[in-house]
């Protein structure tokens, strides 16, 4: 009897984020003909935004490398083949020949740069909160970026999470496409704006993901509205008594020239070479906008100067099992402090301050598992 189960698996150029159209092979980490397994890094890929690695989806043998180092390939196009040992060469050739070629942005007849899944939420205060939304199924997930970032920080995560959840990645006040004017720039103020945004979008129950400063905002939001928050995932959190790197913050605020901004961004990553020119350019363009320096200065002074509170709010102390913390060992920006008992902690060994960008597959799986667990626990309660 012949098994018709798929014994050949296509490795295609991944689409990281909403704007990636092509990627360049940097180096294969698994040699042609060598065995591989899920989670093993197959190949290093560079996009104009960032460099990242692609892991094997299946166990098997890497039978073909279809694009070599330096080669630039459209997203969705074949770059390699994993198959079990007994699959014949001719079967692989046939598989490659029949593999559908991806439709490029140009062939789909859309403007490559102006696809914009963003929406702008008008708050009662008169300010605007911008967010990227994706997905339609499942429970609601809200992403909150860190200091100086924006919704683009989730480019490796939002698409994957959106396969199972309705997702919203907000630009915090003073950031991205949101209103740049902030009042004091305190964590309370930022949390109040996000809360007003959730009200406008009529999102009554959400999983919160916060990175760095966004983690502090997520905790503040949870404290304001415990019933609204299904779970909290904190990445490299400015929380639980940690200190923010004041030198980084002041350098980031004052950096004007592209190379100074690049030097700042490099500090965020365990591998400083991960920062691409496009990512730097996007941050430079953001920093040139009227009002940004003032907003960042206020937020830094009022939200980040003192260490984060050590204790969680008394009302939340019985709910620590809803909290997941993910940290990278090479974090130069936020210091590690002991976390409250009951909180789940994951330490990632190849990450700095940006685990969601540096080890996205791992982070995505941790997040999805955390949401699933919280959702089923909530279901049991109901």
């Amino acid at each position: 009897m012949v098994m018709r189960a798929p014994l050949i698996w296509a490795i295609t150029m991944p689409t990281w984020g909403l704007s990636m159209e092509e990627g360049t092979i940097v180096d294969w980490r698994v040699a042609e003909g060598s065995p591989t397994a899920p989670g093993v890094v197959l190949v290093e890929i560079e996009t104009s935004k960032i460099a990242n690695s692609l892991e094997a989806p299946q166990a098997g043998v890497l039978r073909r490398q279809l694009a070599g180092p330096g080669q630039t390939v459209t997203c969705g196009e074949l770059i390699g083949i994993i198959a079990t040992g007994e699959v014949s060469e001719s079967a692989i050739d046939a598989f490659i020949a029949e593999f559908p070629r991806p439709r490029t942005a140009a062939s789909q007849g859309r403007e490559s740069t102006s696809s914009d899944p963003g929406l702008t939420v008008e708050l009662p205060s008169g300010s605007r909160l911008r967010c990227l939304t994706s997905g339609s199924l499942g429970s609601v997930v809200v992403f909150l970026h860190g200091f100086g970032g924006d919704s683009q920080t989730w480019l490796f995560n939002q698409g994957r999470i959106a396969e199972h959840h309705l997702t919203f990645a907000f630009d915090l006040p003073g950031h991205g496409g949101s209103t740049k004017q902030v009042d004091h720039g305190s964590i309370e103020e930022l949390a109040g704006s996000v809360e007003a945004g959730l009200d406008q979008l009529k999102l009554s129950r959400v999983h919160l993901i916060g990175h760095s400063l966004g983690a502090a905002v997520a905790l503040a939001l949870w404290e304001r509205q415990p019933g609204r928050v299904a779970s909290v995932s904190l990445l490299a959190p400015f929380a639980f008594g940690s200190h923010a790197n004041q030198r980084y913050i002041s350098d980031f605020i004052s950096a004007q020239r592209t190379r100074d901004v690049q030097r700042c961004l490099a500090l965020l990553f365990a591998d400083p070479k991960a920062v691409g020119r496009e990512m730097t350019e996007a941050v430079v363009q953001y920093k040139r906008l009227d009002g940004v320096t003032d907003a960042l200065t206020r937020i830094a002074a009022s939200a980040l100067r003192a260490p984060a509170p050590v204790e969680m709010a008394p009302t939340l102390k019985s709910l620590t099992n809803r909290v997941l913390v993910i940290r990278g060992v090479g974090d130069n920006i936020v210091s590690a402090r002991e976390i409250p008992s009951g909180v789940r902690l994951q330490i990632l060994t190849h990450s700095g301050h940006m685990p969601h960008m540096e080890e996205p597959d791992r982070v995505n799986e941790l997040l999805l598992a955390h949401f699933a667990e919280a959702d089923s626990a909530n279901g049991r309660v109901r």
Partner: protein
Amino acid sequence: MARTSFRQALNDALRSEMRRDSSVVVIGEDLAGGAGGTGVDDAYGGIMGVTRGLVGEFGRARVIDTPITESAIVGMAAGAAMTGLRPVAELMFVDFLGVCLDQILNQAAKFRYMFGGRARTPLVIRAMFGAGFSAGAQHSQCLYSIFTHIPGLKVVIPSSPYDAKGLLIQAIRDDDPVIFLEHTKLYDLEGEVPVENYTVPFGEAHVLREGGDLTIVALARMTHMALDAASALAEKGVEATVIDPRTTSPLDEETILESVAATGRLLVVDESNPRCSVASEIAAVVAERAFRDLKAPIRRITAPHTPVPFAPVLENAYIPSSTAIEAAAMELARWS
């Protein structure tokens, strides 16, 4: 971000600064006109339509049409700048600055220095420049090297809609006289431009493309020619860095020197005539400060030392082409 033309990006910059700061006025020939005006006010909006619609929003007191007298435009604007306004004067063609050069080089450029730093001259003079429209020898020149030569002036030459908006806002907010030059062939160029206001700082070059084999420094429209050439070169295995200085005064020497330190080969592309040009200046800076880094002679690609021809065929031959850039770059890359 929105898809915006170079022309519209300039209009956005003028409009948003006029809204933000009531001391900003525009002065020039046929500037009134367009959306929001009636009768005689519903006219052109400047020869290239850059000021279209401003008179409807800001009125005749801030959108000032003048007689055809460039010396009056610049004299009025320089005086207004000294006495507290932030005028943006438009001079149609840079070629016409010849008739008001004294006011620029002996007056506006000197005020701050001669009054011991106690005078400010927040003046912007906009003009179009460049060949490619068969407009003849008196309407097609690239004269930025003349202004770059004069201490006290800042000289800005944007090459993209993004830079056009950010550099013009920076120019208007700057307290010194700024010569802001727009290449005729770029007005319809489209690109992504933030809806919000922003400034692009003077004296920071834009690295448009990175490659390890040679450095191409190109100005204004020539950046696009250089990028075309760089794409063609990449297919042949030669990777070029392309740098747009954006402002020729101040000039970002560091970015150019850093790139030359990495590549060892420099090609400068400039649509100007070659003698005493910005291309010559960049070549001199690199020869002086990076001699040890160089693996090949510095090359310049410029127009010839002639007036701009009127005949389209000759005009085309006059303008540096991407094929000429590619050939010179290839020669440099192979030079040993």
